[in-house]
C-alpha cells in the first residue's frame, strides 16, 4: 500500500513544487464524503432535510414547550391579559345607552331592565341577552340593540299599541291586537277611547272582538263592551242592559244581519232584553218583562203573576 501512495505522489506534488507551496491536498472526496453528497442530492432526502426536518424540529420544540404546565398557564394568562387590555381600550368603551321610540316612562324601565353598568367594553355586552331582557317587558313589542360609534348603545324600542281594555276579576288590563298584555289600568275612565272586553279567554280572541266592533256601525255608540262567553263566543253588551248573543261561527255576519234587521225594523230601539243570534236560522228575541206583559195584554192573554 505504501508503494501505491508513493505512485500518487508525483502527480500531486509537481505543481506545488514549482510554486513552492506545501504539497497540494488530494482533491478527491473521501468515500463517505462522496456518499454523503450523493445522499444529500437525493430528492426525497433533500425535501426531508429542507422542509420536513425544520417542521419536525419546530413542532417538536413547540410541543415540548407546551408539555410543561407552567408554560402553558403563563401563555394562557398572557393571552387573556392581552385580550383584556385590548377590550378595555377606550375605542370599545360604551358609555351611554340611548333608548329611542319609547315613552319616557317606558324608557326609564327599559334602561333599568338592560341591566348594564355603563361604561363597559362593548366586548362584554351580551346584546342578545339584553335584547331578550328588554323584550320581556309587556309594553315592548320589539327591541333592536346596536352599538354605534362614539360609545353609544342604541336601543330602538317598538312599543305595543293598546287596542282594548280587558276586564278581569283582578282588574283592568290594556291589551294589544294580539291579546298580549300592555299595561295595567287603574280605572276604565282613564282610557274611554278603547273598547272593553271581558270574560275568560277574551284576550286571546281580541282580533275577533276588534272585527266585531268595526262591524258594529250604528250600534257603536251604544256598545258597553264585549263579553267572551265560555271561551267560545261573544256577547255584545249594549246600554239599557241589552245584549246581543253572537254565534260561535261567523259572528261578524250575524252582527251584520242584526244591523240589517235593525235598520229595517228599528229593532234595537225597542224594549228588548236580548237578541239571540246563536242559531243562524232565526234570531230569537227576549222582551223585557214589561214589554212582554204589554204584548200579552194587547193580545188579550191574561196571566197570573205573583212575586214568586
Amino acid at each position, binding site marked *: 500500500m505504501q508503494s501505491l501512495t508513493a505512485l500518487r505522489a508525483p*502527480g500531486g506534488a509537481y505543481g506545488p513544487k514549482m510554486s513552492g507551496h506545501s504539497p497540494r491536498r488530494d482533491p478527491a472526496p473521501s468515500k463517505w464524503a*462522496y456518499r454523503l453528497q450523493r445522499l444529500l442530492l437525493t*430528492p426525497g432526502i433533500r425535501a426531508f432535510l429542507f422542509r420536513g426536518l425544520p417542521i419536525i424540529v419546530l413542532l417538536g420544540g413547540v410541543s415540548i414547550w407546551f408539555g410543561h404546565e407552567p408554560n402553558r398557564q403563563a401563555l394562557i394568562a398572557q393571552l387573556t391579559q392581552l385580550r383584556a387590555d385590548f377590550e378595555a381600550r377606550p375605542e370599545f368603551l360604551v358609555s351611554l345607552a340611548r333608548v329611542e321610540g319609547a315613552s319616557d316612562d317606558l324608557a326609564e324601565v327599559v334602561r333599568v331592565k338592560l341591566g348594564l353598568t355603563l361604561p363597559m367594553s362593548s366586548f362584554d355586552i351580551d346584546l342578545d341577552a339584553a335584547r331578550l331582557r328588554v323584550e320581556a317587558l309587556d309594553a315592548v313589542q320589539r327591541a333592536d340593540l346596536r352599538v354605534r360609534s362614539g360609545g353609544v348603545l342604541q336601543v330602538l324600542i317598538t312599543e305595543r299599541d293598546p287596542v282594548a281594555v280587558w276586564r278581569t276579576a283582578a282588574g283592568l288590563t290594556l291589551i294589544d291586537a294580539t291579546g298580549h298584555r300592555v299595561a295595567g289600568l287603574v280605572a276604565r275612565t282613564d282610557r274611554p277611547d278603547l273598547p272593553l272586553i271581558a270574560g275568560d279567554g277574551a284576550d286571546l280572541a281580541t282580533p275577533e272582538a276588534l272585527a266585531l266592533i268595526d262591524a258594529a256601525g250604528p250600534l257603536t255608540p251604544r256598545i258597553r263592551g264585549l263579553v267572551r262567553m265560555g271561551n267560545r263566543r261573544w256577547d255584545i253588551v249594549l246600554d239599557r242592559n241589552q245584549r246581543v248573543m253572537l254565534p260561535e261561527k261567523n259572528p261578524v255576519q250575524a252582527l251584520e244581519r242584526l244591523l240589517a234587521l235593525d235598520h229595517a225594523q228599528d229593532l234595537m230601539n225597542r224594549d228588548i232584553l236580548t237578541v239571540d243570534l246563536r242559531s243562524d236560522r232565526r234570531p230569537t228575541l227576549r222582551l223585557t218583562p214589561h214589554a212582554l206583559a204589554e204584548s200579552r195584554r194587547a193580545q188579550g192573554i191574561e196571566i197570573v203573576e205573583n212575586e214568586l
Partner: protein
Amino acid sequence: MTDLYTSQRAMRNMRKAAMQRGVIAILDVGTSKIACLVLRFDGPDQLREQDGVGPMAGQSRFRVIGAATTRSRGVRFGEIAVMNETERAIRTAVQAAQKMANVRVDHVIACFSGAEPRSYGLAGELDLQDSVVTEQDVSRVLAACDVPDLGPGREVLHAQPVNFALDHRSGLGDPRGQIGHRLAADMHLLSVDADVVQNLLYCIKRCDLELAGLASSAYVSAISSLVEDEQELGAACIDMGGGATGLSIFIKKHMIYGDAVRMGGDHVTSDISKGLQIPLAAAERIKTRHGGLYATGMDDREMIDIGGDSGDWEKDRRQISRTELIGIMRPRVEEILEEVRATLDAAGFDSLPSQQIVLTGGASQIPGLDGIATRVLGQRVRLGRPLRVQGLPQAATGAAFASAVGLCLFAAHPQDEWWDFEIPSERYPARSLRRAVKWFKDNW
C-alpha cells in the same frame, strides 16, 4: 462473450430507465483527464422550434447541466492501472458535476480509449421464410453472422449492423417491411480486452454508480467531430488523447473500423521531461504553453525558462530555445502519426472514396500539427472540434472534449447494436418457457 453480451443488454435497459428519469452522467475516462458531464433530457416538447435553428443531429433533446474535469490518476494508455486512484478521480469528477447540476445521478455512460480495440467485419445471410422482412428476420440474420475467434479474454464492445442487402439490392439501412427472398447483413464488431472493461465496470460500481452504456472513445469522438457529410462519404477520425490515439473510420454514417495506437500526448510530455530533465508537470506546462511542431528563425531567439526548485541555481535558471523544444516534440508526434498511418493502411483506408482525415482530441491542439499530419497522412486533413451541444461550458468545448461530447450524442441517439434486437426464438434453450411464449407470439 455472452457475459458482456448480457451485460450490454442490461446496460441498454438501464439507459432506458435513465432516460425515463431524465438525468444521466457521461464519464470519459482518459489518460490525462477524467471528464464528467451530467445530461438532462427534456423530451421533444421542450424544443425551441421558434428560434429558427431546429434540433441539429438531435442534440437539443438534452442539455448539459453539470460539467467537471479532473486530472486523471491511475490510468495509463487509456486503461485503468491503479484501481483506487482511478476510483478517486472518478469520484472527484462525478461529485463536482453533481454539485454543479445540483442533482444526483445514478446512471453513467462511460467511454475509454485503451483495451486494444480490434475491428472485425462480419457477414451473414438468411433465406427468408416469407417474403416480407420482419424484425425477427433481422435478428436472425444478425445471429447468422459467423463470429470470428476473438481470442482469449476478448469481449465485444460494439457490434453494429452496418449494411443490409436484400436479394441484389445492397446499402439498405432498414430492411424491415421490404419484400425479398434472401437477406444479408454486414456487421462491424469491435472487440476489446475483457479485463480492462471489467476493471472499469468494477471502478464505476465502487463509485455507487450504475453503468448504462459503454463505448469506445475513438467511436464517440468521431460522432462529435465528423460532420454529417464526412460520416456519410467516408472519413477517419483520429482522436489524439493523452495515453492512446484512437482511430475510427466512418462511411455511410457507420463505423467500419476502429483501432487505437498506444501513444499520445503524454509520451510527448515524457520526452520533454526526459530531454530537459524536468518534472512531468513542468514538462506538461512547457508543452502546452510553448509547444509547437514547426521551427522558424524566430523560435531560435525565443528562450523558455525551464524553472525548477532543485535548489541548484544553475539548474533552476536553465533556458532553452523554442526550437529545441520543437526538436524534442516533433519526432514523437511524427512517430504517432506514422503509427496511425500504418494502422490506416492496414485498414485499407486508401481504398475509400473519400480520404478525409479529422484530427481531434487534446493532443491535436499542438500548433502546427495539421502541417505535419498533411505530410504524413495525406492532403485532406483538418482539425476537428466537437459539435456544440446545449449547455456545455465554454471550457469544455475544446478538442479535448470530443469524446465526452460524442458520448452525449451517443447517449441521445445510440446506434443499433446487435444486442438491441430480440434473440431469435431458435436460439432460446429448447425447453425454455420463453421459447414457447415466443413461438405463440410469432405464430398468432
